[in-house]
């Protein structure tokens, strides 16, 4: 019996080893099963997705760009789960290995015999024989990694899907409208590319990683538009998304200040006007005292012109003329006479670098002429800088306020060199802020550019150039180069052009950060009105909702409510009112 017990123990060990050997084969089978199921799923799904995407693209219909890939990922995950839970009992694996390696049912029989409680000598010999073979089994031989037909099909389907997604559809398969759209998008790409490049440079200079990422994204968008990889609707969505990102970059780089640069420029211009007029008046009195009545009269006239001057260029001209006359009268100054004018011009155009450059020039002047400047000149400059410091309060360059105040104090104390050092230090400290402001400005420009592109793509009937100018006010028409944020909504129903027999006039409408917006309005009945390019169905919902709200708020007079309601009902039903 002792020998019998020993054989049974030996058999148990053999059973453990047998199961271990089969476990290796099972893991291999699960792996291959996962691969096979995944490739099968990919073959079917990618093929179907390729066809659907192609049809959507041909039909110019929108779809989430990564939806097919997400579905493929789900399929692969499902295949892994299925392979893991696939029932693979020992008996199945044993029979499979037997068949594949020609083991003549050794493993299958052994697995069955392992359940025998008291195996006979022959049965133990059988299990030992099976164990001998299972230990030599190489799972790679039994289950080689084969390229199934489904794998090939999956590969082809994936290539087809990627090709359909990434490659532009040849023009041959596009309708006239689609070709026009592609051309339009390419045109937008040409508009975006320089802006993106500018943004990248500004972001790099400001050291803003997020802005650099957005700039790269913008460049990629331009590239995709140029290559025709995006359709119109995808482009519109991307524009909108990019606009938000650019707004975020802009807000991050330079949060809006309480006082705009344009306001500061106006205040500075006003101060410059008064200073110039006062200076001219002072010189006129001096000329009168010297008996030069002609010059006195001329200077009085200049003081009058200075008070009425609206443009920085006029003030600059007057300042330079005044400096010449002052020199003739022996009251000349070596300090720049048109500092306020130049600074106001720079601020008006939000050219922060130019603003700093003007102040830097003043700094050089102070450093060079420190010992030569008279007290009177220093006092005048101190007053001017104190005034400038006051004006720059609450602006983006508020950092300069303190510096300019210190410089003013130094000048009043007659410490010209110290004032120069102080100004130089202040300017250096502002460089980073200027970079950020430039980045914010560039982001704003890029956002406006995208807004224009979006308008153009939505077929509002406004050309890109016009759209850039906003509401029909292009660069050629007025000084306003940006579009208001709500221009999109207004432009949807705005006729592209109207011919009028009436007169045109400029009227100030609203105050914007950059200053008053000038709008050209046309009076008189339009002769012809071109059709709006926006389909009704795109705007009808918003307009109807707005009308309903207006009616509910009783903003429409009672006598017109019925008419208004009938009008929109008729539009919604597709009939002319």
């Amino acid at each position, binding site marked *: 019996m002792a020998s019998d017990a020993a054989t049974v123990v030996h058999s148990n060990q053999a059973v453990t080893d047998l199961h271990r050997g089969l476990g290796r084969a099972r893991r291999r089978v699960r792996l291959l099963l996962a691969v*096979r199921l995944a490739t099968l799923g990919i073959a079917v799904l990618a093929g179907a997705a390729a066809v659907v995407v192609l049809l959507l693209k041909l039909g110019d219909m929108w779809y989430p760009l990564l939806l097919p890939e997400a579905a493929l990922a789900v399929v692969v995950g499902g295949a892994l789960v299925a392979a893991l839970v696939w029932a693979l009992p020992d008996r199945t694996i044993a029979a499979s290995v037997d068949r594949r390696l020609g083991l003549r049912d050794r493993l299958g029989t052994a697995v069955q015999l392992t359940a025998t409680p008291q195996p*006979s*000598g022959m049965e133990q*010999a059988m299990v030992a024989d099976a164990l001998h073979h299972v230990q030599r089994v190489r799972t790679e031989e039994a289950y080689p990694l084969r390229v199934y037909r489904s794998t090939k099909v999956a590969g082809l389907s994936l290539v087809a899907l990627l090709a359909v997604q990434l490659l532009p559809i040849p023009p041959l398969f596009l309708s006239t409208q689609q070709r026009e759209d592609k051309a339009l998008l390419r045109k937008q790409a040409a508009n975006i590319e320089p802006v993106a490049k500018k943004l990248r440079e500004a972001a790099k200079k400001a050291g803003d990683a997020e802005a650099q990422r957005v700039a790269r994204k913008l460049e990629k968008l331009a590239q995709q538009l140029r290559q025709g990889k995006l359709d119109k609707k995808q482009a519109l969505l991307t524009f909108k998304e990019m606009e938000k990102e650019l707004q975020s970059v802009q807000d991050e780089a330079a949060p809006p200040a309480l006082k705009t640069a344009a306001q500061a420029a106006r205040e500075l211009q006003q101060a410059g006007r008064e200073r110039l007029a006062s200076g001219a008046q002072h010189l006129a009195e001096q000329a009168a005292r010297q008996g030069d009545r002609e010059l006195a009269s001329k200077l009085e006239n200049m003081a009058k012109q200075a008070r009425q001057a609206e443009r920085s260029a006029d003030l600059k001209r007057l300042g330079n003329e005044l400096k010449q006359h002052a020199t003739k009268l022996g009251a000349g100054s070596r300090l720049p006479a048109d500092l306020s004018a130049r600074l106001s011009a720079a601020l008006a155009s939000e050219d922060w670098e130019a603003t700093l450059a003007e102040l830097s020039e003043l700094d050089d002047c102070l450093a060079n002429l420190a010992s030569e400047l008279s007290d009177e000149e220093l006092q005048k400059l101190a007053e001017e800088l104190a005034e400038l410091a006051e004006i720059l309060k609450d602006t983006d360059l508020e950092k300069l306020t303190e510096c300019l105040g210190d410089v003013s104090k130094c000048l009043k104390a007659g410490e010209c060199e110290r004032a120069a050092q102080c100004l130089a230090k202040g300017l250096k400290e502002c460089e980073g802020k200027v970079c950020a402001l430039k980045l914010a400005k560039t982001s704003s420009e890029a956002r406006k550019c995208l807004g224009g592109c979006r308008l153009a793509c939505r077929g509002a009937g406004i050309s890109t150039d016009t759209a850039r100018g906003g509401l029909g006010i292009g660069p050629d028409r007025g000084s306003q180069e940006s579009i208001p944020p709500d221009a999109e909504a207004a432009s949807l129903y705005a006729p592209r052009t109207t011919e009028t027999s009436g007169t045109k006039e400029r009227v100030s409408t609203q105050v914007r950060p950059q200053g008053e917006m000038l709008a050209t309005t046309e009076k008189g009945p339009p002769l012809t009105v071109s059709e709006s390019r926006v389909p009704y169905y795109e705007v009808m919902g918003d307009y109807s909702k707005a009308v309903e709200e207006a009616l509910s708020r009783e903003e429409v007079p009672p006598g017109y409510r019925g008419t208004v309601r009938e009008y929109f009902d008729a539009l919604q039903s597709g009939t002319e009112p």
Partner: protein
Amino acid sequence: MSEDAMQSQEEAQRQAARFRQLIADLKAEVGKVIVGMETVVENTLIALVAGGHVLLEGVPGLGKTMLVRTLADALDLKFARIQFTPDLMPADITGTTVLWEKPSGEREFRFEPGPIFANVVLADEINRATPKTQSALLEAMQEHSVTVAGTSRLLEEPFLVFATQNPIEMEGTYPLPEAQVDRFLFKVKVDYPSLTELHEIMDRTTGHESLQARKVASREDILGLGALARQVPVADHVQDFALRLVLATHPDKEQAPESVRQFVRYGASPRAGQALILSGKVRALIQERFNVAVEDIKASAAPSLRHRMVLNFEGLAEEVDPDDLIAEATANVERKFEQDVPV
């Protein structure tokens, strides 16, 4: 636990080695006389170990009788040859009771055993005897006993009948009844030798030398081989395959292929299943395995089933070869049976 089950693994392996050695010796001894016919010899040896009878079918002169005689020479067993003729009577086979006079002058009836009372019986040209005579073998073949004059006498084990028949010379022959055919474990077809084999046969039989097999296996050896073979385990799926194959020879069963439905009248009996499993066990041991494989069943399918399938009129008219039907049935069962993992 039985005595067999008590055997240790090493003992089983040792016995298996002894088994293979004996079979190899038998093959070698038979091979001294018989040229070629490897499959025939192997099937005959399998039947010998399994304790089954063999029906050898082949045209005259192919060495069927010689094979059985040689095998008998290699075995230390009692051998008898019965030449079946139309006038052969059952008593000529089983023996009869004769009146015998003792030396004392007293007379008594005494049973004189016939040639059936041997271990290996060669029933030469069995289909030449009348059905009445052929039927004399029925009891002996199935129950290993002979009943004469109301007295049953057991035959000594092993009892093996090796019958031969000629498939083409049908004049004056009596086809074996189904009941008797079914008692043969195998029906082995003896094919014509190849040119090389013919050369060898000529060399061996036309010279001075007269080769004869020496005895290499005793009665106990043969009985031991049979007992050992019966211990070989059979997995459920292998047995299932064998039984499905048997069922596939029945035209009314779902496993049957279309050809079986068309040409077969009756399929194989359960004895066919026994033949498949038993021969599979012996074949497994010969091939150094301790288990029966599906391949063993497939190898035994034709000799086990071909004589058990009764063709219908259409099958006979079309001269359908049962081997073809068996091959188709095997493929059909295999196709449905072998479900591999889908990788």
